[in-house]
């Protein structure tokens, strides 16, 4: 009977309304080993994964963006819905798993109905049973299966309860020769009318009434069902009422969190706590890492000796790895906090609270999460902007994200601020850093407002603006889940950024070491250390990097800077944090036993503009550099993602040009303005 066609593995699609636990389930089944791919020609992304080996079921699992109904409201929704019918790569699904929140039955069954009507093979994963049970209710699965006409399995994706059973059901459905494989789902437009929609809701409410049963802790299913059969009809009205009750705890918390005035105050308190805690929590760990790598680098140099490979290992590799790892604490903490906020249900509320102000400048409450993530990294932030249905608002959000002060800028600011303020006045440095964050956020808002004025020229889109967002009930975050997510997000980030930073510091090492590797100097009467020091600066002055730097020196002069900073700024275009390791390399600062940052600052204080004896780093030039970093779009990956997300080169190129030009202009104004009023 085998026709000789290569056996194709089953294709399963996972869909569900927002907040129905879809992603949690997907993560559990895929073990987070998924690939994210864009639909051809669209900015909509899907995740595809193989089901984990432990489930003993070979199949492709597709996760699609959360949808409320099968009728798209925006272009992006249309793309993801079309792909449920006929995926450009995998075709129609063998089985569709729909996640349905048990406590939201009357809303979530809408999508199920539409899917069954469109003739998909549907299996329901019923989630959040615990929330329903808390209300003293349960769902009679056999009844619900009867009324809906498909298999229903209770699952909890957070702990994996019911997942085996769910996959078993899918397997059985696929193996069943009677079931109609690869039905051709039909795009049904007929129930698109409001009247039919209302009719459908009525039917669903009717079903809900019939399947809700009381929940008791001493659950003895058979007895209970039998005993309740008669009671059911009587208690139904009561059941429905308690099912429609909001979680009382949530109501209490929202009295404060969503208070008309207090709400905003709480919002700002939460936001500022987040940012200060990122610094305070991370800084001790960061200085340990910093010390460790400074120590390693100097020891490697003294062990391997003053040779090219000794220099390569200590300056090229160890300093390079160090400048990657130093971000681990901050990124991890940020992802951790974002995860907690998301898991508790606060993020949606934050979005609601600032929808109005944001809509005034052409953004949307839904821009809030992307903007917030922008403080970690612009790349996940731009991806998060996908949840904004209005195209203009999404593009505008993506446009200003590079202005949000990402974590890669942090080490740069940390270094420059440490230069400005003496070590004893850490609190001043903290205030200054907060000011930088406020300033860059304000800048982003101003830019958005300005662009909003000219938006018709930039983004041609007529999608209407809307804000309809479910505020999920507060839940205690599961820390193992949050930790696991933070770990994976950070890993993803370092996988992306790490090789670039490391690779570039090796290239930079090469450029600063060659071609004049062993300069001849007159070393008579000087100590060995001194000779090495002079050799270093001699080697650098005749290196490739110096050639390159001297070429751009005329551009750096107006900022009061020289070619060495120029080279560092150029290398920072691969990723901003490279600036620090690049300064370290160029000023050749590996000193014995000193932590990296201290030695860089030491070297910076000594540095003079060549030929003039004038100090290179002064208050004004350092502030100029900070201003430059606030504005400049120095990140190749951001440009690449912006191109991908906006569907063309237009917006990333405008971003690159506008942000970098204004960086230069404002830095110039800052440096020369400060000098004018007598600050060196």
């Amino acid at each position, binding site marked *: 009977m085998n026709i000789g066609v290569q056996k194709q593995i089953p294709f399963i699609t996972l869909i569900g309304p927002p907040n129905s636990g879809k992603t949690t389930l997907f993560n559990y089944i895929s073990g987070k080993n998924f690939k994210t791919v864009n639909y051809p020609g669209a900015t909509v992304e899907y995740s595809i994964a193989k089901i984990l080996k432990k489930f003993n079921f070979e199949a492709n699992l597709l996760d699609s963006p959360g949808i409320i109904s099968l*009728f798209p409201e925006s272009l992006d929704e249309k793309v993801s819905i079309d792909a449920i019918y006929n995926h450009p790569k995998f075709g129609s699904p063998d089985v569709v798993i729909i996640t349905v929140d048990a406590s939201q039955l009357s*809303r979530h069954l809408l999508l199920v109905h539409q899917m069954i009507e469109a003739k998909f093979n549907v299996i329901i994963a019923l989630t959040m049973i615990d929330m329903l049970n808390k209300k003293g209710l349960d769902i009679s699965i056999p009844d619900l299966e009867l009324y809906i006409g498909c298999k229903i399995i209770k699952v909890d994706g957070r702990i994996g309860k019911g997942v085996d059973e769910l996959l078993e059901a899918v397997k059985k459905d696929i193996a069943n020769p009677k079931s109609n494989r690869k039905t051709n789902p039909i795009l049904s437009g007929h129930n698109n009318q409001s009247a039919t929609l209302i009719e459908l809701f009525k039917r669903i409410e009717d079903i809900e009434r019939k399947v809700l049963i009381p929940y008791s802790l001493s659950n003895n299913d058979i007895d209970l069902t039998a005993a309740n059969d008669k009671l059911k009809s009587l208690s139904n009205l009561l059941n429905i009422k308690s099912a429609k009750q909001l979680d009382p705890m949530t*109501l209490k918390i*929202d009295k404060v969190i969503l208070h*008309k005035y207090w709400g905003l105050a709480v919002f700002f308190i939460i936001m500022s706590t987040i940012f200060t805690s990122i610094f305070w929590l991370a800084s001790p760990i960061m200085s340990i890492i910093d010390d460790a790598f400074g120590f390693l680098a100097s020891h490697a140099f003294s062990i391997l000796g003053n040779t090219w490979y000794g220099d390569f290992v200590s300056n090229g590799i160890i300093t390079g790895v160090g400048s990657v790892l130093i971000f681990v604490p901050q990124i991890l903490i940020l992802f951790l906090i974002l995860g907690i906020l998301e898991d508790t249900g606060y993020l949606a509320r934050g979005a609601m609270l*600032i929808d*109005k102000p944001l809509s005034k400048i052409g953004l949307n409450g839904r821009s809030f999460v992307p903007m917030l993530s922008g403080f970690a990294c612009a790349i996940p932030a731009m991806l998060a902007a996908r949840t904004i249905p209005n195209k203009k608002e999404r593009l505008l959000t993506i446009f200003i994200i590079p202005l949000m002060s990402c974590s890669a800028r942090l080490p740069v600011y940390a270094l420059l601020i440490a230069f400005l303020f003496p070590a004893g006045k850490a609190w001043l440095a903290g205030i200054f850093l907060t000011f930088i964050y406020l300033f860059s956020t304000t800048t982003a808002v101003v830019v958005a407002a300005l662009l909003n004025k000219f938006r018709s020229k930039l983004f041609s889109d007529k999608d209407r603006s809307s804000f*309809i*967002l479910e*505020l999920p009930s507060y839940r205690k975050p599961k820390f193992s889940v949050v930790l696991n997510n933070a770990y994976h997000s950070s890993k993803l980030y370092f996988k992306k950024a790490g090789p670039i930073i490391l690779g570039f510091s090796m290239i930079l090492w090469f450029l600063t070491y060659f071609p004049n590797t062993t300069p001849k100097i007159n070393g008579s009467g000087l100590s060995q250390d001194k000779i090495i020091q002079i050799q270093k600066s001699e080697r650098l002055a005749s290196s490739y990097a110096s050639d390159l730097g001297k070429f751009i020196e005329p551009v750096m002069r107006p900022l009061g800077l020289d070619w060495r900073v120029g080279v560092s700024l150029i290398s920072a275009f691969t990723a901003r944090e490279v600036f620090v390791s690049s300064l370290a390399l160029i000023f050749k600062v590996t000193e014995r036993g000193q932590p990296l940052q201290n030695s860089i600052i030491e070297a910076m204080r000594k540095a003079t503009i060549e030929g003039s004896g004038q100090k290179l780093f002064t208050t004004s030039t350092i502030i100029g550099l900070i201003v430059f970093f606030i504005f400049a779009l120095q990140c190749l990956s951001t440009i690449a993602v912006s191109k991908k997300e906006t569907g063309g080169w237009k917006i990333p190129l405008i971003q690159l040009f506008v942000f970098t030009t204004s960086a230069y202009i404002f830095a110039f104004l800052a440096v020369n303005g400060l000098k004018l009023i007598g600050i060196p």
Partner: protein
Amino acid sequence: MRSAAELKYGEKGMIDFIDESHPSARRILEVGFTPGQEIQLISKSIFSDPMAYSIRGTLIAIRKSEAECIKIL
């Protein structure tokens, strides 16, 4: 005829119909604001926009302009 936007804090109302001339009307229906449902105003953001309603056992925030097309009895 009052709209959901005119509800006071904590006040409940029964949805009569959704004004279909509003571009968001269908999405408002789809998230569960259907005639006959009881809604309750739970909170307003600063500037009274957006507003959050309790509906079908959950909390949904919508803009004031969107709340205005939900007519209540």
